């Protein structure tokens, strides 16, 4: 099965700064999704990017996809303390698989 692998594992920034998280995967995909998870809580879908798209925006989120490098990045601009959470990428295949996540801490 294929799954995303995020880096860094942990990221700590000041409020107002941008946060960039990366994801790499191994095989071809139809789409890649980013999810957010607050500690001990459920998974919240953030954004889906299809394999024929290179960039997608949603509010303060910007996702890029490079299928030739089998990688994606999630950029959160003007971060807020409330953005503190774990962020996962997930790739489809027969079924969706998750990476281990990046734990983002935004300090006020």
């Amino acid at each position, binding site marked *: 099965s294929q799954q995303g692998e995020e880096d860094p594992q942990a990221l700590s920034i000041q409020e107002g700064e941008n946060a960039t998280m990366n994801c790499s995967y191994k095989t071809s995909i139809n*789409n890649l999704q980013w999810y957010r998870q607050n500690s001990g809580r459920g998974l919240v879908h953030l954004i889906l990017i299809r394999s024929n798209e290179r960039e997608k925006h949603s509010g303060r989120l910007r996702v890029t996809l490079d299928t030739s490098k089998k990688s994606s990045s999630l950029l959160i601009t003007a971060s807020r303390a409330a953005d503190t959470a774990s962020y996962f990428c997930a790739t*489809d295949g*027969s*079924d969706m698989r*998750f990476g281990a996540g990046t734990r983002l801490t935004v300090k006020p």
Partner: protein
Amino acid sequence: EPEVTQTPSHQVTQMGQEVILRCVPISNHLYFYWYRQILGQKVEFLVSFYNNEISEKSEIFDDQFSVERPDGSNFTLKIRSTKLEDSAMYFCASADRGPSGYTFGSGTRLTVV
């Protein structure tokens, strides 16, 4: 906005007991999934279900696990004889056209003592 509902939110059970975790997927979705997340670890795929049968399962989903859609609205995960290592958060998800457009429930935290 439609949502996936999971009950209970937290269940504590004795080792060796059977548990049933319940999920109500979004009504017009056709694909159903269970994932689990051991504390501090990544979200792991357990099983997918479509057209009233399992379409794929992971190596975690052994004979102790079973899924059922008993009445056209609920989707359940049964663990027949729980082990300590089954303690985890279990997430249900549903989708309308396969892997794109998943909606996750808020999870059931299972604690086996």
